[in-house]
């Protein structure tokens, strides 16, 4: 995990993701136009991978460009159509995706009716068509004969207006069926209606009515009775078509050229074999540009009659699709969101981004696999949207958390540490252990000698000025060596090295800081002298060793500090400077680490408070070390140096 989120942040994030899951489930259920269009833009691509070929039992006879070229512009004399239909007499059933709602010459109309009567013909009607008429008694009776009777709990679209063929044509039709199909909210046709309610009766669509006759099986229509866990179904014995709440099924589109299609003109070709229609479904429809009902489908512009053919082919060979219901989709969405949440545990943002992409691709491929192998339609667009929004939410939360954490660190350490070190902590917060740890550190204590007597003769305002003048360069000297300002204790300074961030040369750095502080003292004294003030001297003690460091204190007040013997000894060494008459006293542990690099002088064994045994101490001969500020050495040698 990049940075562990707080409980509150995690709760907010989890709530946001749950809300996202619920929102997407509701959107999936309601399918508002723009959202449905976006989702479909992704899932529509699945149709390109349809491996199936439509049943050869369905033959589409098209009034196409070739036929129009041969027989003239549509509409043709009805005897011409009758002649074509007679050629298909061997078919098991003839389905007409045409409505002959205008009378022509009576003998022409009667000829068509007579031709239709020679076969089992399913005629079409249009709900809310252009020439809606109240059907006459014969029309009403044929509608009654055509209606579905085995239905329950269905919520079909209802209509009171119908455009029927004229009675002479109706007379030849065994049954009627609806030719209507309706687009989805983005005006693309993807679904096929099982039936509509017309004037109180349930009227099947052309595909359903034709299949009833072809399969010699009565269709049974069952709604889900408002139960979201159940799907509405249309059954033909063992064959099942899954429907949505309106009684529509999602079509599994085939490329147009995979259908067994004949031009109407081919019916009159010299080599025409009428036997090829034996026991088949023959669908008559128009594809000629300008007169055809062309539909915008996921496979592009598609002839309207092939919508009926697609439904029939889906049913015959079991290529139909089952759309996931809202509760199942909710399960998919929450599974995806849980996976996105798991990705959050990955530390590297680049890897996380790759995993987000991988998850989105996996969702798409899962949808494709379900489509091809199981006929299940997963609207992967919703799940991919869930991945995208969840990833953005998580990354935004992590970024915000990281910023807040950085600000908190900056606030916490800017008073202790130089800005460079604060930046390092902010950039690599995992280097920081704030809870308290035992580690080796160097501790520097400094104190102004004779501060009490000096302060007695000075006004409080002047004293504050002098202290500010003193602490500024001293603190800078510590920061310049990467030290942490632990605290000011009156006129004393406590500084740590190698904490909170690791500092490989912390002992040397502490010594160099002490040297810099002594040179700073010289400059302070020069300034004080000009102002007529008394010069000051600073004693510094340095020790290194193990100590407990961290944010110590109570929940009311705490600060970053160090405790332990190492700290105590450093303080005692600073106290010893006055007695030993030197400016910087270092412990033996410091001496052993720096004597090869810095000039030191042994001061012998000294008893310090709190220690039973005498401690070996050394002077750090700072005068022999160059001023880090000016680069100048105060004394090349020290008289006491040994």
């Amino acid at each position, binding site marked *: 995990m990049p940075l562990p989120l707080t409980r509150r942040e995690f709760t907010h994030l989890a709530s946001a993701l749950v809300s996202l899951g619920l929102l997407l489930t509701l959107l999936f259920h309601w399918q508002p136009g723009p959202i449905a269009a976006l989702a479909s833009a992704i899932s529509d691509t699945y149709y390109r991978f349809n491996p199936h070929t439509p049943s050869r039992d369905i033959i589409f006879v098209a009034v196409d460009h070739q036929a129009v070229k041969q027989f003239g512009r549509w509409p043709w004399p009805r005897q011409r159509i009758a002649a074509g239909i007679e050629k298909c007499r061997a078919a098991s059933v003839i389905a007409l995706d045409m409505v002959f709602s205008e009378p022509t010459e009576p003998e022409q109309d009667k000829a068509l009716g007579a031709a239709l009567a020679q076969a089992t013909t399913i005629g079409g009607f249009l709900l809310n068509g252009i020439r809606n008429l109240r059907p006459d008694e014969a029309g009403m*009776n044929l509608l*009654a*004969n*055509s209606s579905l009777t085995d239905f329950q709990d269905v919520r079909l679209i209802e209509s009171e207006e119908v455009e029927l063929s004229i009675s002479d044509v109706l007379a030849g039709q065994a*049954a009627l069926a609806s030719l209507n199909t309706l687009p989805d909210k983005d005006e693309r046709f993807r679904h096929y209606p099982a039936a509509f309610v017309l*004037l109180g*009766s349930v009227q099947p669509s052309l595909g359903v009515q034709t299949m009833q*006759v072809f399969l010699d*099986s*009565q269709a049974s229509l069952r709604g889900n009775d408002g139960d979201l866990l159940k799907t509405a179904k249309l059954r033909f014995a063992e064959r099942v078509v899954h429907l949505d709440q309106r009684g529509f099924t999602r079509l599994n589109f085939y490329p147009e050229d995979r259908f067994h299609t004949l031009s109407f003109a081919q019916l009159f070709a010299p080599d025409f074999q009428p036997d090829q229609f034996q026991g088949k479904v023959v669908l008559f429809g128009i594809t000629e540009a300008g007169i055809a009902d062309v539909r915008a489908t996921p496979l592009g512009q598609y002839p309207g009659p092939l919508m009926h053919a697609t439904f029939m082919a889906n049913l015959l060979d079991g290529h139909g699709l089952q759309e996931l219901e809202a509760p199942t989709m909710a399960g998919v969405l929450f599974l995806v969101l849980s996976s996105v949440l798991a990705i959050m545990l990955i530390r590297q943002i680049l890897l996380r981004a790759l995993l987000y992409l991988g998850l989105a691709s996996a969702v798409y491929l899962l949808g494709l696999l379900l489509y091809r192998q199981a006929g299940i339609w997963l609207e992967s667009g919703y799940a991919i949207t869930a991945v995208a929004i969840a990833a953005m939410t998580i990354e935004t939360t992590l970024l915000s958390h990281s910023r807040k954490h950085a600000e908190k660190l900056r606030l916490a350490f800017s008073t202790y540490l130089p800005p460079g070190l604060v930046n390092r902590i902010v950039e690599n917060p995992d280097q920081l252990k704030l809870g308290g740890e035992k580690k080796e550190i160097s501790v520097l204590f400094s104190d102004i000698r004779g501060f009490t007597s000096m302060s007695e003769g000075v006004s409080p305002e002047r004293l504050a000025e002098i202290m500010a003048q003193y602490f500024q360069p001293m603190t800078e000297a510590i920061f310049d060596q990467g030290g942490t300002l632990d605290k000011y204790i009156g006129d004393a300074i406590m500084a740590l090295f190698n904490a909170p961030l690791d500092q490989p040369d912390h002992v040397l750095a502490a010594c160099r800081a002490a040297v810099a502080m002594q040179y700073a003292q010289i400059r302070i004294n020069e300034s004080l002298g000009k102002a007529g003030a008394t010069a000051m001297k600073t004693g510094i003690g340095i020790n290194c060793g193990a100590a407990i460091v961290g944010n110590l204190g109570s929940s009311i007040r705490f600060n970053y500090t160090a405790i332990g013997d190492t700290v105590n000894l450093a303080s005692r060494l600073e106290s010893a400077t006055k007695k030993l008459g030197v400016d910087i006293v270092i412990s033996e542990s410091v001496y052993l680490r720096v004597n090869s690099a810095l000039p030191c002088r042994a001061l012998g064994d000294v008893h310090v408070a709190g220690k039973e045994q005498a401690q070996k101490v050394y002077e750090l001969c700072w005068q022999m070390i160059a001023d880090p500020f000016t680069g100048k050495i105060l004394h090349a040698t020290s008289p006491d140096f040994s």
Partner: protein
Amino acid sequence: MRLQNVFLVILLSILSGPALAKCQSVAKLVAFEGQVSIKPNSKVLKTSPGVLPRSLCAGDEIHTLEGRALTDDGRLSVAIDSFSLAIFTGVSKAELNKGQALFEVHKRTAQKGVEVKTRLSVIGVKGTRFLVGDKDEGVSVVLDQGVVDITSTQGPIGLYRETEVSKPVEDDFESYARRHAEGIASEKNAFEQYKTEVQREFVAYVESLTLEAGKELVTQGRIAVERKISGDAAQAIKSLRAWQDKN
């Protein structure tokens, strides 16, 4: 002589062939009005009744939309109301799967063998005139004349009997309504609910029962309520009888 008999049998077989191929008539459609269709047994598509009287074979279905149909087999006449589905399974044997129909046995002597099925019960006819309905609220048998035996096809059912609401009950209702005003949509609904609770009196768990004239039995699920003929049922009987008499 024996050879002659063989020829005779062969001749009779040839002559009776077409007759055997055509089904045995179990009832006749004698009248209809409006949208009425017949779905011949084992056919998918329905047809119009055509010329009357039209013989019905066993398993033939009569579907009505905005229309009515009347059948008669000499013993039993069935007036099928609009939006109904009746199946004729044998001579004087019928099933009502949807809607409602008025059944009438012509003679008391002809009662034997008359059987009417619904999706929840089998009605053995002892009476002469009864209305059977299969609607959303349940399956009802309304006996206008005579007696019928009703047998549940779904095992024992709880039989309740409804009594009339008297004035004291109305008074009780007022206090009941006051107590239960909250959460009840309207007093009218509350009263209907209260009436139902108060009026229904559990009788017994039964598999079959005998219904007397002037009563109706409404079965829904595993509960059957016996009560006086409701106004709607009486109106339906009246309407169907009038049409039946006209035809």
